[in-house]
């Protein structure tokens, strides 16, 4: 056995890399061990067909927290974002398209073609989301307080957030409290009449979750995502080189301040002695001792598979078992010989309008019906779809004149009622292609090749337990002081010197870096004691 390392980080997803950076900055010597051949976790760019590269999983950032981008100097390390003029094109079955521009004024003009009232509400809604999002954003920076015996830092944090909430004024304060448990469908109906607008915004509240727009609590998800991004339908930002460029820049930043990164290093076990983590055992059999272990893997994987449950109380094991972590998202990446021609956009000049996000979310009930199927263990035959064509902003992703299309599809439940994902994979792909071709008839003829990633693949290939893209459902009962579990929301686990830093910890709102940065702060504090 080699020498004792300082801090081992299990997994080189973006949160693991962010944590490594901040821990190294704080004077520790982190060693990141990633099981795959390259770092990045769910934020990666890979070649899936000769000459075609694409963000394999996430194709849009959370967005990243601005302070993290700054601290890590990600731009200096090669990260460059482009924000397209068109934010979202939302297609409807009657051949129309609702176009939301990134610029609020321009968006309102476009919405006015559907409804004058909605055009006016659009900026009100954006303003309300902005104000509320700012306050929620402050809470996302906090380590969730210790409920039983809050320390001074906790009290200070709560006081500050409490004050910001009060500063919102009565109207917005009640909004925060009232909106959280609401259904996204009810929330958008308070502002808008136009169905595709309602549904396109409400879709933010169901993204990545096992919720329909009529499910209570979907408005919370919408608000959480708005915390970093108050643009009503959610902004789009494309890194040149795809999502992998984000994590490549993060890895470079972490290394520069002294972190070490090893890929192809799968951890088989986290060693625990007398309730204290002492190091890891790799799949190769190699053992590495460490003063502390930080896991970027999801809470279930970490605490039910990497740690022998014998080291945990039965009560804790029961709770972590009940942590809801089954996914509903599938991902399809396609190599295209030409751009698809969307009927609704033909008259308006297709190309430029396709640079943002293209959504199939024509009405609330469409989304709800898509959800209904998943409740009974079927994937949606008419799914909610979010498309991007990143090769429009970054032509290097595909051979000249050709394109890559990245498609999120929901709902694809991890547990199928009939058959398994291996037998249903092709059918899922067909359903998606069929759905899109209803809006772009030439679409099937442009497909050269495709990669279909089911929830099972998310689990087996990319290490997301249950195929959950957020390492666990984002919901009122798994949020803030309850993420992943009540009493264990402060990045510490019941095993001493074993910490969590992935998306299954607060804030856990996707590709933002928030969990990794918060965890590093907390871990540095406890390790120094």
């Amino acid at each position, binding site marked *: 056995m080699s020498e004792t390392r300082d801090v081992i980080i299990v997994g080189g997803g973006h949160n693991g890399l962010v944590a490594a950076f901040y821990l190294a900055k704080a004077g520790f010597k982190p060693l990141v061990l990633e099981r795959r051949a390259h770092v990045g976790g769910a934020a990666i760019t890979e070649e899936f067909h000769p000459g075609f590269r694409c963000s394999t999983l996430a194709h849009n950032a959370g967005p990243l927290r601005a302070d993290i981008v700054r601290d890590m100097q990600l731009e200096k390390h090669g990260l460059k974002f482009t924000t397209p003029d068109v934010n979202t094109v939302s297609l409807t079955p009657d051949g129309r398209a609702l176009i939301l521009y990134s610029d609020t004024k321009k968006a309102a003009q476009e919405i006015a073609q559907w409804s004058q009232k909605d055009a006016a509400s659009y900026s009100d809604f954006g303003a309300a989301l902005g104000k509320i999002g700012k306050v929620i954003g402050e809470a996302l920076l906090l380590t969730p307080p210790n409920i039983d015996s809050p320390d001074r830092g906790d009290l200070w944090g709560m006081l500050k957030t409490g004050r910001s909430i009060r500063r919102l004024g*009565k*109207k917005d304060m*009640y909004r925060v*409290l*009232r*909106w*959280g*448990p*609401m259904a996204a469908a*009810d929330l958008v109906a*308070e502002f808008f009449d136009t169905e595709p607008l309602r549904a396109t915004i409400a879709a933010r509240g169901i993204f990545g979750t096992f*919720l329909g727009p*009529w*499910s*209570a*609590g979907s408005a919370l998800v919408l608000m959480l995502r708005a915390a970093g991004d108050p643009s009503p339908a959610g902004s789009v930002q494309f890194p040149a080189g795809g999502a992998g460029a984000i994590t490549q820049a993060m890895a470079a930043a972490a290394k520069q301040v002294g972190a070490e990164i090893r890929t192809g290093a799968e951890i088989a076990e986290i060693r625990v002695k007398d309730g204290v983590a002492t190091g890891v055992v790799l799949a190769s059999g190699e053992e590495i001792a460490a003063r502390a272990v930080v896991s970027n893997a999801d809470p279930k994987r970490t605490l039910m598979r990497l740690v022998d449950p014998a080291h945990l109380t039965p009560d804790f094991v029961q709770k972590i078992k009940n942590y809801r972590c089954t996914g509903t998202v599938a991902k399809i990446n396609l190599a295209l010989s030409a751009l698809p021609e969307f009927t609704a956009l033909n008259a308006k000049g297709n190309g430029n309008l396709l640079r943002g996000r293209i959504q199939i979310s024509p009405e609330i*009930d469409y989304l*709800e*019906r898509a959800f*209904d199927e998943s*409740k*009974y263990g079927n994937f949606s035959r008419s799914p909610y779809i979010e498309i991007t064509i990143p090769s429009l902003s970054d032509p290097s992703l595909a051979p000249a004149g050709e394109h890559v299309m990245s498609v999120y599809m929901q709902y694809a439940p991890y547990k199928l009622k009939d058959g398994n994902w291996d037998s249903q994979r092709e059918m899922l792909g067909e359903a998606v292609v069929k759905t899109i071709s209803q809006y772009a008839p030439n679409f099937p003829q442009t497909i050269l090749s495709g990669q279909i990633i089911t929830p099972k693949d998310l689990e087996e290939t990319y290490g997301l337990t249950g195929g959950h893209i957020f390492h666990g459902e984002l*919901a*009122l*009962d798994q949020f803030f002081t309850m993420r992943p579990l009540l009493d264990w929301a402060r990045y510490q686990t019941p095993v001493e010197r074993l910490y969590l830093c992935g998306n299954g910890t607060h804030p856990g709102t996707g590709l933002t870096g928030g969990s990794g940065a918060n965890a590093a702060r907390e871990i540095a504090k406890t390790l120094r004691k």
Partner: protein
Amino acid sequence: MSASGIIGTFLGVRSPGTAYVLLHHYMGEIDGAFRAWGFARGGTGAISNAIADAAREAGAEIRTQAPIAKILIKNGRASGVVLANGDEIYADVVSSSVDPRLTYTRMIEPGNLPDDFLEGVNRYKFRGSSGKVNMALDGLPNFKCMPGAGAHLRGAMSISPSVEYMEKAYDEAKYGHWSSHPYIDMVIPTLTDTSLAPPGKHILSCFVQYAPYKLAPGLDWDTEKEKFGDNVVNTIAEYAPNIKDIILHRQVVTPLDLEREWGLSEGNIFQGELSLEQLFFLRPVAGWAQFRSPIKNLYMCGSATHPGGGIMGAPGRLAALEILKDGGA
């Protein structure tokens, strides 16, 4: 057991938040038996009559057949009521046990309430989702799963065979159709109180979910009413085949009937959905959950206030305490 979580609420069993409705139903205690929705002799009407007697004994006066048309407001204070027949009655305190829509938009002249408060009232969700079918029976139903007239008939019987069954029942309602395979909660009160029907005859009271107040375009409750009733009978017949032979009379109550005849807006049995965003300090309107209203001396004391609907009397008691705290006037 999960059936309790959906009663009277426009939520499916998997919808988050149903745990509150469930808890809510278990909150009541009857004769010390936890989770007993006990039967009152003489039906639930007897509970109301007993409460009325107690109130009278304590000095309250009760007048029936006295519909209120308007609440009088003078200088921003409630000063009494006008009955439908035009009679005016002056009072120091007016306390409304009807829902906020009726109270604030029907009984109060426009212009007396702040805009954002009215916005909250208009936003308050009712969306009734249940109906009732009451039957007069010439005997007792004979359930296939438990034949004969055993003790099981005395309690609440429910048709809620699986979580999936209930979820599917809900799915239909979401798109404006009454459930083709509904959740049915049945009681035969005549087994505990023989005075409710002639000897040998029985009453079967069925609470049925889902029956959405707002039906899909092209459908209306007046034409759907008896079809809905037939479907309930057919559903019960799958479990108790003799039911059709023993029905003497049937009364179908749709959510629209609940609104028209019982004054329950949109037929919601709890005077408004028991969903988290309209509970606790948010019921009925954020900032106005303390039983008070923007109008001085006007209070709320019905199920549209905390802690919500059900025959438990809590909103009335809590409201009375607040009114007394304010000095009674």
